[in-house]
């Protein structure tokens, strides 16, 4: 016989809902205040912001050093993502379709940049690039970022590949398609949403990285997060808020794009937790 909910049970339910709402406010708050303060008319940071102006945004887009940092970050993230797709999809295909001795260890190595200290990867790339003569250049940033973001592509691709029916591929092969044809005509269209989500995860994680970039850029040649990191040491002003707000808008766009591709719930749980397939 089931006991009906008494007052204490109802209070319990209510307090879980209450705590959750507070936690959600906690999650949104820092981003909301940054956006709010980027419109302030005061020349210094003041909360609550006063008035409304686009002035700080104009200041950012008319400052060539900020624009250049945005360009560097975009080029870097695009190049790293493209390479991550070229490296990660074949690897994911192998891990999802073939079991061989050492496969698990190998996939653990490919996924390890997700959990190893990013600052140590930054330092290691700096020393390596110095030894080989390409320190603090686009290529040093590029190789570091590729290592950093390839795991996202591998993880989402494995999840999509395991979710699709292998009989489709086998049918195509039985009907005489080559493996390359099978991949591009059957497999890729099936896993496309997952691959897009993985590419977006890769892009954004390159775009927001500080630790690898800070060791491998120069004062003139910087990505936007490193530019912000250097800027915040000396100035805390509404210009900083405007640049930060711009990066928040980009984050929201990427979240929406992932939601449209595969649904944000599935993507979040697949990519951020270690669900193995």
């Amino acid at each position, binding site marked *: 016989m089931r006991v009906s909910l008494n007052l204490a*049970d109802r209070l*319990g*339910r209510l307090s*879980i809902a209450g*705590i*959750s709402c507070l*936690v959600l406010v*906690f*999650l949104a*708050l*820092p*981003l909301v*205040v940054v956006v709010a*303060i980027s419109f302030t008319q005061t020349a*210094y*940071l*003041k*909360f*609550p912001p006063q008035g409304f102006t686009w002035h700080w945004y104009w200041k950012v887009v008319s400052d060539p050093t900020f624009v250049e940092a945005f360009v560097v970050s975009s080029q870097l993230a695009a190049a790293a993502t493209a*390479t991550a797709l070229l*490296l*990660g999809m074949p*690897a994911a295909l*192998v891990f999802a*379709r073939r079991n061989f001795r050492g496969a698990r260890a*190998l996939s653990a190595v490919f996924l390890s*940049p997700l*959990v*190893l*200290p*990013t600052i*140590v990867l930054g*330092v*290691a*790339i700096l*020393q*390596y690039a110095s*030894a080989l003569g390409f320190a603090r250049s686009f290529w040093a940033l590029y*190789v570091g970022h*590729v290592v950093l973001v*390839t795991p996202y592509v591998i993880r989402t691709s494995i999840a999509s590949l395991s979710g699709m029916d*292998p009989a489709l591929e*086998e049918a195509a092969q039985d009907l005489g398609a080559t*493996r390359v044809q099978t991949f591009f005509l059957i497999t890729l269209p099936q896993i496309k949403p997952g691959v897009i989500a993985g590419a977006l995860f890769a892009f954004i994680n390159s775009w927001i990285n*500080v*630790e690898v970039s800070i060791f491998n850029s120069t004062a003139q040649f910087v990505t*936007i*997060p490193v530019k*912000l*990191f250097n800027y915040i040491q000396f100035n805390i002003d509404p210009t*900083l*808020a405007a640049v*930060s707000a711009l990066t928040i808008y980009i984050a929201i766009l*990427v*979240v929406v794009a992932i*939601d449209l591709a595969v649904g*944000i719930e599935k993507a979040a749980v697949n990519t951020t*937790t*270690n669900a*193995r397939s």
Partner: protein
Amino acid sequence: MRLTPVNTAVLLLGPIAFFVLFFAAPFALLIGESFARPDGGITLSNYVAVLTDGYYWKALLNTLLISFWVTVVCFVLGYPLAYFIVFHVPSAGVRRGIYVLLVTPLFTSNIVRAFGWIVILGRRGMVNSSLIAIGLIEAPLDLLYSKTAIVIGLAYILLPVMTLSVCSVLQTVDRSLIEAARDLGARPSRAFLAVTFPLSLPGVVAGSIIVFALSVSAYVIPSILSGGREMVTPILIFQQYTATFRPDIGAALSVVLLVVTLLLIGAYLFFLERRLRVAV
């Protein structure tokens, strides 16, 4: 797709070559550097320097202490939220909104999130101006640049990770077990303590370890929110390359950080295995 050994080798050639050249080799060089003597020999002196100096130990202990509190805060805030998402949110639309709120901070640079906390906790920030406006205090409080500020900042960054980890396990909890406990007369609180919580424990442990490991190696948040008053190992590493120019010491400290992280990851994988067994 049926892959022959030759197919497998061709597909893995690119990724393995890239990771050997730009992941394994740089780490090997870094480890080598930590044992290198200026004249070319092998030495343990960098490690002796790092492991016998109280200053480095203090920084490491501080790092571990901060990471411990970050993990506690993430659990206390993240578990109820995960439970709420999985069991209490009836509408798919609302759940989707909550996931957007969880993921958007993850897609924002640490530096932007740290800046958000400066705006909230700073002397002219949100908390201080609110407290002054309602007359509770007269002069602004020093909320920033402390251990507490670092813990808040890191917990903020890692809360989505903990929540998603617990969510992924709670989703797999067999609801008929909870129903059975309720049908046998257990109150919701007792059903939770006797059934749901023990079954979700592997997700809690896995989430805690990953949160702990990521806070141990965090650089940006401690660097911005410490204001130079708190020292953690990643900041020490950074200084060896940018201020004191001791890459040999920096390499040894990096290896220490790497070893601490690998031990944590080992523990994580151990619990992941158990979680799989529980799920089966």
